[in-house]
């Protein structure tokens, strides 16, 4: 009885904590890294006062946000106003359940892992809409509408990109998808090569889906102040922040898992130690992808709203549909050797 209780309840909770606590720490350090990188690109210092090299800045920010008062606007809908941040955070964290960190390290090796991811990421939009509506503020509502339209539009392109990966890998299980990319040629065995356009579309859609620059009309500081979370303060705002960054890191990990071979080494397996597969490779790849988010933010001006919609519907979706056919042909006629595993 006690044994089973431990097996069914205690260990899963321990595993979940093993993922979420490092994730939250990673978000804190990612915020610091973002400010630092953007500072360098602007020829500034970035945060450098708190702790050595400013490393404790993120923690100081967290403490500041937590001890601030959460202000409830008088005309807001009380229940939904407090519910919205949680509805944003929960799917952002829940999606991590199926991410495989290495061949054995995965919380839930679900057969329909990719579908589960799609389901979870599509739930995140509720927090945004409700935050915008419950705040009862014009800016917040405008931001929420923009954000929701954008997320729904780019989800389609993203889904079609996933279809290409599924066709080549022949599985919805993320561990199987990575294993299908294994081979002796290292880097050249991964899906990014036969699916290059789709890979690019996937990552750009990921940037748009997380409402990051240059697709950040939903927040658009210069137009609508901060979008859907303009009325939030203190810890409620911190939760939105946490969810946004957790989603960015999730997209980085997914790009690495789906297109860049996950935990596989980029070097041929004959190269000895550095040719071995392992968890650090996934971290390095995800770090490079998450760096792209910051690079984009510091480099590109913001897209106009209709340009975003046009890019999603009239450019990305048609290309992705065509590439689904191409991927089908690649698989059917056996034009590529990858996707068959070792």
């Amino acid at each position, binding site marked *: 009885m006690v044994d089973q209780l431990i097996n069914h309840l205690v260990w899963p909770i321990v595993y979940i904590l093993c993922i979420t606590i490092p994730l939250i720490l990673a978000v804190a350090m990612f915020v610091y890294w973002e400010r630092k990188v953007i500072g360098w690109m602007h020829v500034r210092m970035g945060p450098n006062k708190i702790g050595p090299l400013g490393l404790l800045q993120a923690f100081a920010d967290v403490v500041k946000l937590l001890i601030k008062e959460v202000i409830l606007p008088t005309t807001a809908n009380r229940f939904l106003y407090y519910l919205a941040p949680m509805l944003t955070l929960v799917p952002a964290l829940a999606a991590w359940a199926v991410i495989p960190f290495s061949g054995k390290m995965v919380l839930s090796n679900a057969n329909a892992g990719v579908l589960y991811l799609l389901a979870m990421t599509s739930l995140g939009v509720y927090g945004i809409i409700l935050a915008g509506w419950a705040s009862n503020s014009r800016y917040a509502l405008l931001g929420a*509408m923009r954000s929701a339209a954008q997320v*729904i539009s780019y989800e389609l392109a993203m889904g079609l990109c996933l279809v290409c990966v599924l066709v080549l890998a022949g599985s919805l299980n993320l561990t199987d998808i990575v294993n299908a990319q294994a081979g002796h040629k290292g880097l050249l065995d991964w899906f990014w090569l036969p699916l290059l356009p789709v890979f690019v579309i996937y990552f750009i859609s990921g940037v748009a889906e997380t409402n990051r620059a240059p697709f950040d009309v939903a927040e658009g500081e210069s137009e609508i102040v901060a979008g859907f979370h303009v009325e939030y303060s203190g810890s409620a705002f911190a939760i939105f922040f946490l969810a946004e960054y957790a989603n960015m890191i999730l997209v980085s990990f997914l790009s690495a898992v789906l297109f860049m071979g996950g935990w596989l080494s980029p070097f041929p397996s004959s190269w000895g130690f550095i040719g071995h597969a392992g968890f650090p490779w996934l971290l390095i790849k995800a770090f490079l992808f998450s760096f792209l988010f910051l690079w984009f933010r510091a480099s590109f001006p913001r897209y106009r709203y209709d340009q975003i919609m046009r890019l999603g519907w009239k450019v990305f979706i048609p290309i992705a549909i065509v590439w689904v056919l191409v991927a089908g042909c690649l698989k059917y006629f056996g034009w590529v050797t990858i996707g068959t595993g070792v």
Partner: protein
Amino acid sequence: MNPQLLQLICFYLFGFIAVVAALAVITLKNTVHAVLSLVLTFFSAACLWMLADAEFLALALIVVYVGAVMVLFLFVVMMLDIDQEKMREGFVKFLPVGLIVAAAMLVEMLGLIGVKAMHAQVMGADPAVVAGVSNTAWLGQALYTKYLLPFEVAALILTVGVVAAVALTLRQRVDATRHESASEQVRVNPRDRVRIVKMDAVRPAQPTPVPPQEPSS
């Protein structure tokens, strides 16, 4: 606590939430709350299907209904400007009609369940389990081989629906003066708007220094 018991507890929990949420949909006064209750109902139903090992259906329900359809629904409801009091005015007047409809539906459902029960066939084993593959894989196999034609026809009908929806909403106001067409904006060629002229840098002619005039007296 064996797995079966845990599953049973989960079943009743999800089922209870689904029923309560479904009741909330029709009793809550605030329309936005009602829509959210509907979302919760869908979500609980998806959890129930997941318990029944129908993982593909469960996730598809969340992706399609919760993630897309209900979001649009929520949008519409949020934009509505409803007078709550006015909506509740005709309650007594429409009550008999509502009761009749409800009774008719109850009789129909009971009849259907009764007929089904009479022709009760013992459900065979789960075909996915028999084939030794996951539910999703089995469903994919069945849809794309055995039921390919109906599947494609359904897809075609949906596509027609999409085209019709686009055609219905694709209209332009002719009377609008402060309206800019997005497609026109996109089609603009930058060269029509700004002309960049290349000019050689020319040193302006040096004005000849005017010699200071001697004050003449």
